[in-house]
């Protein structure tokens, strides 16, 4: 798989996070809190091509009622949403920044995330940059790394289950209506 492909794959095969790191960066309660609490999602590296994984995720989040803010200097509008060249240009408060970029680009992105005061940052599956993730943690942000927003949303709202996937969730408690 080419580097570019691997980095943007919605669900990568890269399972390099240690068990300890998974507890830190893929914590179930942390992920659920973001999915439940976030309203605005800035997507750095969102593609305007409809067959691209990032576009799939954006389209999904829009249909689930999130406000998606594209961050892509080469686009003016993606999926009907105005696109911004960088995070600093976004005029509204950002709840979570979802990153579809190469790990090497993440240090600069995290600096910007901290600067604009976003509450959480989410590095997509395969986007692994421990320095950047730790810098965000030190700045008090909620950090998720090596996970997909769409898959995690589907895991907890039941839709991933509907296509036969192993969500890993086991519970005898009655489900709640809504998320």
């Amino acid at each position, binding site marked *: *798989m080419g580097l570019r492909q691997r980095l943007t*794959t919605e669900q990568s095969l890269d399972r390099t996070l240690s068990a300890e790191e998974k507890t830190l960066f893929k914590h*179930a309660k942390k992920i659920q809190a973001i999915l439940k609490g976030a309203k605005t999602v800035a997507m750095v590296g969102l593609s305007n091509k409809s067959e691209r994984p990032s576009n799939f995720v954006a*389209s999904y989040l829009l249909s689930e009622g999130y406000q998606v803010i594209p961050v892509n200097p080469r686009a003016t509008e993606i999926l009907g949403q105005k696109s911004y060249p960088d995070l600093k240009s976004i005029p509204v408060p950002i709840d979570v920044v979802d990153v579809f970029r190469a790990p090497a680009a993440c240090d600069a992105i995290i600096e910007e995330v901290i600067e604009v005061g976003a509450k959480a940052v989410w590095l997509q599956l395969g986007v692994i940059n421990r320095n950047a993730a730790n810098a965000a943690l030190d700045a008090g942000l909620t950090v998720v790394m090596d996970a997909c927003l769409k898959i995690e949303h589907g895991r907890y709202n039941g839709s*991933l289950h509907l296509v036969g*996937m192993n969500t*890993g969730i*086991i519970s005898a408690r009655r489900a709640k209506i809504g998320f």
Partner: protein
Amino acid sequence: MSDKKDFGFETKMLHAGHIPDAVTGSRAVPIYQTTSYVFDSPDKAAQLFELKQYGNIYTRINNPTTAVFEERMAALENGTGALATASGMAAQFTTLMTLLRPGDEVVASSHLYGGTYTQLEHTMKQLHVKVHFVEPTDIKNWEAAITPKTKALYGETIGNPKGSILDIENVAALAASHSIPLIIDSTFASPYLCRPLDHGANIVVHSATKFIGGHGSSIGGVIVADGKFDFTNYPSIADPTASYHNLKFFETFGEYGFLMKARTVTLRDTGACISPFNSFLLIQGLETLSLRMDRHVKNALAVATFLKEHPQVAWVNYAGLPDSPFHDLAKKYVPRGPGAVFSFGLKKGSGDVRAKGKKFIESLDLFSHLANIGDARSLVIHPASTTHQQLSNAELEKAGVGPELIRLSVGLETIEDLLWDLDNALQQSSL
């Protein structure tokens, strides 16, 4: 909801894939006997059809009762996901149709269920796929049969009729070194006795009709994938798919890519979906799988040991017996016991052994004479007088099912009763 914990096999048997629903709180898995699902809106419907949203579209593609069966099987096999099909034959066909293109080749063990052999040899040939069958016990045979066109390796955990145990790790290592996925039919073992993905296989298929359902009531199949195989060089999974606006399944769905393509392209187009009612019955079977399998293997070992000592029996092919050539592999791959299906040979006396086999079958009271395995009840078949009756004795020997061969699927009855029945029939057949 608590943080994820690694629950045990029996807990997953009872709970994985089913959370009591918010509206009714129904504790049992509801049977969603429906063909289709009302869409929220045209926009949501479009999202579903473009696979931008996971959800219910049409029961040929997915169904909420079937989804419980699928996720439960994925959890029990330690896979990333699963796809249920109309039968075990449909599970393997769907797997191959998803992976292969005309001109591709498969290397398969020759120790296979006859129906699988026929599908691989004849139906695959019609699709311009060549399958090379190899004696599976020597890894060199597998290696020698691999060509640049080989796109899958295929074997069974417990092979019929010799009761051979496949050295899965050995074949998996060879498959990995050639970047080819290893497909294992684990029907005879069920996920309780062996989990091939844990040993390096990439895809597991089952005839769920057998031990998974466990009661001989429903036909069904299932495919479970490990989600670790890199399909970059598999055009069938990696290339743009014309019927989905050139969607690239592997790039978009990654570890779910193979299963998503199998579901939304192969199953959609070939139509071999399972009935929701059958999924429900298979779920019922899964809930007692470990309990039944423990008794199945206990009874099977007792029957095999009894037959081994019986004066009317020539040989017994059960890897659970210490003198089986597969005993060591059985201890490694199926430590709780090598299933409950095996063959034995009637002693060839002076008369016609084929007639002796027929007499044996006719003399049984408890073993049901039929063409199936994995029922809670004990089953028996004599291939020379039924499935293979058109073959001469010489042809039978060549096919590895001599005229003296009897196949048993040992059930859950009182063991003394099974031994009484077999002893009685053996004596009757020798008169």
